[in-house]
């Protein structure tokens, strides 16, 4: 490479002034560096990458990106380097112009390995540190933080001095601290200051950085690293618990939503409805149909699709519930085991009906814009769909509670639950209450289906996945008590999510099931059991 350059200079001298301009172009550090790519050795390529980055040429970023994507070509014979664009055009790397004429016979890709990719990422990071785009600068700072290339330090210092945005400035400071910390030449005082910056960043990457430092540091630096590492670990552990609790709340709200209708049919009527999961499925398919119609006729309404689907799902599933009660379940009162079998058969039929109409594959139910995305709260990430589902669950729960407490229908339902014969004697039409109660429980399941369509696959088997969990919630919480269902759902949800990191998702679930099996032995009627004569009824 050097000899090539020397020969070039010699040639220029020989040819005199006419070609001097061309010789100047070759002396440009960018073009000089380009030659390194034509050698075909990894170490020359590495040198070339660093030189390209240092050259400040506007083509540098494009070229380096091409090198990383294996789109950088070279010809050893012609000593030329080409950038292959995404649409397979060849650009001359020296000028950035499209290369016309036939490609050289010995054209080949510039080989980069993972080490070189790391270098490329780092230098691209430092190249974009001065970008006018805030988020690009932020990403660049993060990239430098991850790569910790000492060569990026001058660029970083320059960018830091010019930076105005506090968030980017903080990220750059952290990146600078990371470089100082890993650079062997920096002093102990600088390192301790850097450790403080890293500690305040306090995420998993910071911990990895601190733990990855060599052990032969000066004692005072080493102690600071240990202290900062411990601090970060405890902070992370707390945030981790908060995140787990949030996941647990989210799972619990899903369980509650699925189980709350069951709590009504099972609790008030003593009916085991194995087709409850299919009511959830009907709700989810109602959402699908609503969205499908909106897409066809009025796409502008898409953001309101769920608001439209909720009452419709309630009506569809609730209507189905009333029909089921009138045609099947009312003949089986007092025979819970037979009810269980008949409703299981019903669930098979409903699944098959939906499979016949909509096909066996998953249906695509979209998230409205206000349901998608996420935001950070402290050290945890909260997705909008999970958040809205928790809110929705709470609204449903409170509404239901209020309905049972303050309305005529609620009063009559409670009367029938407590003493069916006496309620009938007081003039309550128990058969009508039974049908309405079953419809209400099914309708709530349908609304649950709208929510679940946002986080789960809408398929004919949707309900099957929830039925056993829902029963567990109701049995655990205690039959005939909505508060028990609430506590049961959130306890199981949170316990599940806290067990997962230790035992894995499946073993955690098994542990929960075994726990409930044992719990039922101890308290056969759940946490909040009805007391008195109603128990044996």
């Amino acid at each position, binding site marked *: 490479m050097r000899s090539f350059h020397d020969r070039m200079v010699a040639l220029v001298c020989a040819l005199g002034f006419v070609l001097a301009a061309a010789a100047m172009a070759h002396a440009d550090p960018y073009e000089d560096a380009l030659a390194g790519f034509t050698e075909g050795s990894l170490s020359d390529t590495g040198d070339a990458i660093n030189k390209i980055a240092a050259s400040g040429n506007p083509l540098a970023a494009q070229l380096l990106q091409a090198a990383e994507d294996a789109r950088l070509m070279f010809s050893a014979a012609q000593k030329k380097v080409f950038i292959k664009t995404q649409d397979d055009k060849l650009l001359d790397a020296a000028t950035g112009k499209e290369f016309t004429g036939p490609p050289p016979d010995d054209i080949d890709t510039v080989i980069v390995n993972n080490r070189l990719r790391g270098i490329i990422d780092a230098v691209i990071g430092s190249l974009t540190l001065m970008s006018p785009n805030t988020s690009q600068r932020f990403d660049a700072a993060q990239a430098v933080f991850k790569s910790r290339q000492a060569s990026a330090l001058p660029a970083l210092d320059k960018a830091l001095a010019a930076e105005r945005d506090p968030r980017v400035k903080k990220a750059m400071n952290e990146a600078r601290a990371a470089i100082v910390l890993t650079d062997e030449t920096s002093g102990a005082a600088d390192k301790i200051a850097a450790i403080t910056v890293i500690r305040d960043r306090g995420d998993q990457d910071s911990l990895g950085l601190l733990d990855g430092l060599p052990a032969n540091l000066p004692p005072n630096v080493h102690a600071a690293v240990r202290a900062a590492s411990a601090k970060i670990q405890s902070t992370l552990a707390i945030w981790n618990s908060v995140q787990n609790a949030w996941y647990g709340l989210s799972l619990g709200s899903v369980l509650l939503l699925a189980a709350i209708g069951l709590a009504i049919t099972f609790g008030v009527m003593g009916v085991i409805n194995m087709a409850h999961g299919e009511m959830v499925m009907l709700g989810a398919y109602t959402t699908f149909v609503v969205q499908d119609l909106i897409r066809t006729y009025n796409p502008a309404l898409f953001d309101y699709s769920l608001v439209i689907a909720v009452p419709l799902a309630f009506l569809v599933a609730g209507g189905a519930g009333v029909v089921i009660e009138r045609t099947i379940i009312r003949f089986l009162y007092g025979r*819970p085991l*037979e009810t269980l079998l008949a409703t299981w*058969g019903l669930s098979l039929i409903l699944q098959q009906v939906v499979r016949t109409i909509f096909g066996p594959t998953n249906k695509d139910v979209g998230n409205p814009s206000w349901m998608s995305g996420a935001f950070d709260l402290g050290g945890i990430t909260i997705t909008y769909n999970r958040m809205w589902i928790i809110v929705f669950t709470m609204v449903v729960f409170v509404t239901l509670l209020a309905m049972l407490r303050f309305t005529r229908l609620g009063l009559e339902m409670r009367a029938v639950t407590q003493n069916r014969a006496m309620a009938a004697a007081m003039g309550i039409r128990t058969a009508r209450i039974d049908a309405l109660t079953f419809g209400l429980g099914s309708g709530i399941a349908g609304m649950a289906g709208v929510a679940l369509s946002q986080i789960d696959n809408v398929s004919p088997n949707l309900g099957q996945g929830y039925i*056993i969990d829902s029963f567990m919630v109701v049995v655990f919480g205690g039959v005939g008590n909505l508060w028990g269902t609430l506590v049961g759902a959130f306890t199981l949800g949170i316990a599940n999510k806290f067990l997962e990191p230790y035992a894995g998702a499946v*073993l955690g679930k098994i542990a929960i099931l075994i726990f409930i099996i044992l719990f039922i032995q101890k308290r056969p009627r759940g946490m909040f059991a009805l007391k008195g004569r109603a128990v044996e009824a």
Partner: protein
Amino acid sequence: MTGAFPLIRLLDKGAVVFLVLLGAFAIAIPVLNLLVPSSSALHVSTYLVALFGKYLCYALLALSIDLIWGYAGILSLGHGAFFALGGYAMGMYLMRQIGTRGVYANPILPDFMVFLNWPELPVYWYGFDYFAYAALMVLLVPGALAFVFGWFAFRSRVTGVYLSIITQALTYALLLGFFRNNFGFGGNNGLTDFKDILGFNVQAETTRNALLVTSCIALAFGFLICRAIVTSKFGKVLVAIRDAESRTRFLGYRVEAYKLFVFTLSACMAGVAGALYVPQVGIINPSEFAPGNSIEAVIWVAVGGRGTLTGAVLGAFVVNYAKTYFTSGILAPYWLFMLGGLFIGTTLLMPRGIIGTYNHWRANRSEKKVAAAPVASPSAAE
């Protein structure tokens, strides 16, 4: 008289008819398969032999469910778990018999363990190269699980639908567990590619016939055990528990002990059924634990007639034959409608099942006041 009386009670007319039919079946099928030339119209194909063998295993499972549901009022929705555990015990024996004929030709480790880089055989696989040990485990593992589970459940008086739901949770938990690769039972794929059983090739026609006859013997034996129980005083107490559990307890019977015994026995029977099932179908995988399977087994009993024993066997044959018939043809999409309809129709329109309805009709016609077999009354279920 005292000597002959229990035998007469044990073998009433229905029981004799059943055993004679079963014996005729056990003789006729192998004869028609092995001795009648395949060109003859009377020839029974080997496919049918395997199919009938499978039905016989289902019948034994149905019998075990009828014993506890029909006579003791315990509706287990997790009996498929005991069936599958028995099947896994047998499957482990069959896996060990493969020896070096597996894909990886490892003399000790089954293929899936080699594939998953297991260094050595897990301790709980020890001993399964001996048939006697495996056969013991077929009885012991389901029995022990049922004993422990029943011990807790019946002592704390978990009854009715609560028991049904937690038995369902039990089989669901096992389903999830057996799906895991690190459980050491082949994970998702289960155990398969069997070669030999007791030195005989499992694919051979003679072995298949022998397995069918063995299944018939097991079914007959299970039937006799059930008959012996339900016709004894012990059986009368069981029926009393089914119809009025609290009252029986107040009369001084230890209800939980009765239930525990019959539940454990039933689990052992289901285990045997599973063990005979596996060599005949050639595979055992976690889907056998699916809660749906257990509920389907319950509907066999309901269709045939709960609390009749023979009805359970009949129901298992009728429903499974219908399933084979309908799921193989153009009617396949409608099978689930039929199965679902069967669940609803049986519970709503024919709660006594086939045999129960027949018994009821005959009892009415002859205007006998004697209730021959204890017919399940719909209101008994608690």
